[in-house]
């Protein structure tokens, strides 16, 4: 009898790379349901276009440019497409979405050597590329539930963060925070439903697809930093109820904009985030600080995408200098 001989270990864990990708996709489904509810047909069109064009771009490049066996089955292009779609307004014309996909897959992922080699998060590069190239299209946000059956002609309004930026933190008292939890706010189509995004987070932690380090350190940093800012402002204005106000301000910072989507699903991208838990915490704190700084003092109301991309650039450095806790070296 011919016996197979190979070195140990002889058994393997249950997770495969594509299972990791598909698990993240599953984790995003509750948030997708929320965006379909609030943004209707536009959310569907933009998301499907984005997924389809990312997959097609990857397939074409692998087949005709690189002449290798296409790996679109591994789920990573689908995930990139889904995340890119989630970061766009639901009234964005199809042709712009396709340009975003080309930037994400073609430039960010494939030009660097494909899965595992890219420095920056593809979906985020796609989004930022569109934000810079088509600023008007990218800053008009359909009003939730107002026009479920319209697409590019949907009624638009401002996001919470831009209002906050214009009107200052006094405006906090007018925000209905429970709307933020369920997703009744303007914004990129996949970022609005806080509860849905958190359900996906719980699922990913349970399946051990990601660890808590990156999301928790980002969220904690943003919360603490924003709370301090809010408190400082309130105290200098000698307002009553300063603590409550600062708390609400910090909570709004957590639940609005792309923070939850970014912290849980974008910053945790395996390829572009650090490998050790200590590195992950440093990276997360960096993203948190940059996010608040951009939101507070930068030219854009929202800073999560930029913050993550900047920290992506530091990932190789972090990997080089931040080593895991070694056994026997307290």
């Amino acid at each position, binding site marked *: 009898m011919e016996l*197979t001989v190979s070195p140990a270990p002889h*058994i393997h864990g249950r997770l495969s790379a594509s299972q*990791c990708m598909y698990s993240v996709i599953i984790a995003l489904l509750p948030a997708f349901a929320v965006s379909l509810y609030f943004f209707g047909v536009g959310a569907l069109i933009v998301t499907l276009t984005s997924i389809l064009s990312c997959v097609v771009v990857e397939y074409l490049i692998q087949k005709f440019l690189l002449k290798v066996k296409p790996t679109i089955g591994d789920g990573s292009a689908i995930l990139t497409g889904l995340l890119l779609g989630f970061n766009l307004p639901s009234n964005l014309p199809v042709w712009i979405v396709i340009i975003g996909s080309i930037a994400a897959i073609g430039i960010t992922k494939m030009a660097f050597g494909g899965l595992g080699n890219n420095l920056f998060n593809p979906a985020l590069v796609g989004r930022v590329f569109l934000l810079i190239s088509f600023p008007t299209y990218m800053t008009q946000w359909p009003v939730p539930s107002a026009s479920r059956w319209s697409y590019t002609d949907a009624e638009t309004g401002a996001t919470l963060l831009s209002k906050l930026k214009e009107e200052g933190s006094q405006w906090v008292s007018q925000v209905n925070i429970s709307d933020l939890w369920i997703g009744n706010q303007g914004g990129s189509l996949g970022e609005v439903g806080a509860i849905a995004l958190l359900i996906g987070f719980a699922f990913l932690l349970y399946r051990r697809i990601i660890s808590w380090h990156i999301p928790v350190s980002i969220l904690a940093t943003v919360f603490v930093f924003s709370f301090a800012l809010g408190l400082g402002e309130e105290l200098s204005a000698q307002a009553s109820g300063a603590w409550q106000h600062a708390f609400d301000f910090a909570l709004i910072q957590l639940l609005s904009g792309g923070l939850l989507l970014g912290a849980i699903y974008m910053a945790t991208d395996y390829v572009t985030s650090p490998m050790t838990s200590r590195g992950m915490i440093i990276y997360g704190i960096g993203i948190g600080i940059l996010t608040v700084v951009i939101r507070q003092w930068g030219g854009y109301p929202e800073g999560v995408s930029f913050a993550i991309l900047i920290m992506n650039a530091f990932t190789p450095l972090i990997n080089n200098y931040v080593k895991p806790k070694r056994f026997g070296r307290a």
Partner: protein
Amino acid sequence: MLKTFRIGGIHPNEHKLTAHCPVTPVAVPRQVAIMLNQHIGAPANCIVKKGDTVKVGTLIAEAGGFVSANIHSPVSGTVSKVDKAANAFGQYGTTIIIDTEGDEWEESIDRSPELKEEITLTSQEIIKKIAEAGIVGLGGATFPTHVKLMPPKEFKPTVLIVNATECEPYLTDDHALMLESPDQILVGCRILMKAINVEQAYIGIENNKPDAIALLQQHATRYPGITIVPLRTRYPQGGEKQLIDAILHKQVANGALPVSTGAIVQNVGTAFAVYEAVQKNKPLVDRVVTVTGDHIAKPGNYRIRLGMSMHELIDMAGGLPDDCAKVILGGPMMGKAVSNIDSPISKGCSGIVILDEKHAHRGTIEPCIRCGKCVSACPMGLEPFLLAKLSQNHLFDRAERELITSCLECGCCSYSCPSNRPILDYIRVGKNAVNRIIRSRKQS
């Protein structure tokens, strides 16, 4: 919270199919083959020749140096041949073949079942007796036990740790032994304590064996100084360094001997063999072996005479299933795949695991997605993906700085990699190269 080690680790599917199979004695084989190099260290020197008659327990090969072990005949009969023969991995070594006649034991061996609790020998006498009996680490390490009981002068042992974790999936030989002979193990533990002059011992058992924990706890009350420590089930808890960390909360410094923490670790099967050697005068001639696999007809924990053919034992357990594709000596995480099942079972064989076609092969290797799962799984706090890459690119200086030599070869990294990367294969190559470089540096 149950105790466990503090860095890395995995929890593979346990597959303890034979957890409730009691130890079953197997008939004496018609012929045995005894390899002279079945332990770590120098091979033993054969002291019999063709035609000699031997009894069970007759010394047939003498330790060939300080780090080496005696070997005794596991059967009575006639030496039919002393010749080179292939072991389970196809490597040739001197082997003594004995044809069995009857089952006659050396008179000095006490075969009565009575428990003998009283320890009359001194520390030195105990160690001498263990050396004479040819006992080696029975968890699979096969390091001569008496050598481990005599640490370098500068270290003074303060505690004995008995490894009863059995953290490898599938294996249950230690579990079955604990349920069968709790008192013998505890007396063996007392003997080992006396040998190294310590007043305290811990027996670490993973909590997937609640019956063994309860039984030993109940019996341990009669033996002063012995504490049973339930541990959270996690691989590689049976690694010496991990076990010391789990129980004493002390980490062996990089490059230091485990005994520098004051602990001497022995396997639970070894403790049982020590009892038999010291109290009953019985050298190491048999052991418990788990034969298991998803499609084996009669998986179980068998007490066999050493030197029995692996093939014969597998036949006892219902024979090789049709879909058998891989046979592993030891557990599936650190055991070795066998090429020759007609080879004899040796002292270090804790189990034979038989895998079918589906489980015998590895998945397709895909690119590293930098998920960091190998890093968080590594119990030594290394970066396996990096060590693999450095080894692949022959960057041995850097690999040394990244502590490649402290890799345990536990396999947690390869096990966890979602891209099926053969991380440990690369690391082994790199580690050997680095060790070679370090040795040549020391010489010059």
